[in-house]
């Protein structure tokens, strides 16, 4: 009974991890590769941990540890993906040729690393000398 549930969880998790690996080899650029690896890989590892928790269901401390791993992956995988994707865009790594939408292309200066919000020059009620407050993107570091 329990073995069947464990087998299903392990197989599903391994399938997701395998799909993530196929995606990371086959997809064309950094953002799409990250899209495959971060979500599918994290879900695969979490499902395998669910299988581990089901297998050791008589030991509550093991279940607690498995849940701790799941929560940790759930919290840190988006943060790591965001940070790496931000660094990749910051470096100006070329996107795929078939990219439809790049919303930062017009407002982000690749040379000075300044990100404009688009509302600097038409804010009402201010003289032109007080406009142009650009958001510095941590260039002082």
């Amino acid at each position, binding site marked *: 009974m329990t073995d069947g549930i464990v*087998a299903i969880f392990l197989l599903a998790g391994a399938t997701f991890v395998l799909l993530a690996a196929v995606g990371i080899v086959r997809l064309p650029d950094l953002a799409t590769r990250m899209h495959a*690896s971060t979500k599918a890989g994290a879900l695969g590892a979490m499902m*395998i941990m669910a299988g581990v928790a089901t297998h050791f269901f008589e030991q509550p401390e093991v279940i607690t*540890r498995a849940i701790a791993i799941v929560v940790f992956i759930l919290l*840190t995988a988006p943060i790591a993906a965001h940070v790496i994707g931000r660094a990749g865009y910051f470096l100006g790594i070329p996107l795929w040729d078939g990219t439809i939408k790049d919303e930062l292309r017009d407002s982000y200066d690749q040379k000075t690393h300044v990100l404009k919000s688009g509302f600097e020059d038409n804010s009402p009620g201010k003289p032109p000398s007080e406009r142009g407050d650009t958001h510095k993107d941590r260039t002082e570091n």
Partner: protein
Amino acid sequence: MLTITINIVYIMLSLSLLMAFVRLTRGPSLPDRVVSLELIASIVVAFVGVHAVDTGVANLLDVAIVIALTSFLAAVGFARFLERGGPR
């Protein structure tokens, strides 16, 4: 039945480890390699979980916790290194 499933899962995880390693060696830029390293860490966490089920040693889960923590810190460290303008 569970033994056969665990063997199949080992084979699938090994294949995915191999493919992630292909991207690690071929990746045109450093962020690609960092993404691949992060996927490798997830695969190793999954491996440790399957091995805990296989051998019945539940203490192996501590290893999985430490590997997940290390991979997250490595990703954040690499990203900060890249944004500060290290060699690519």
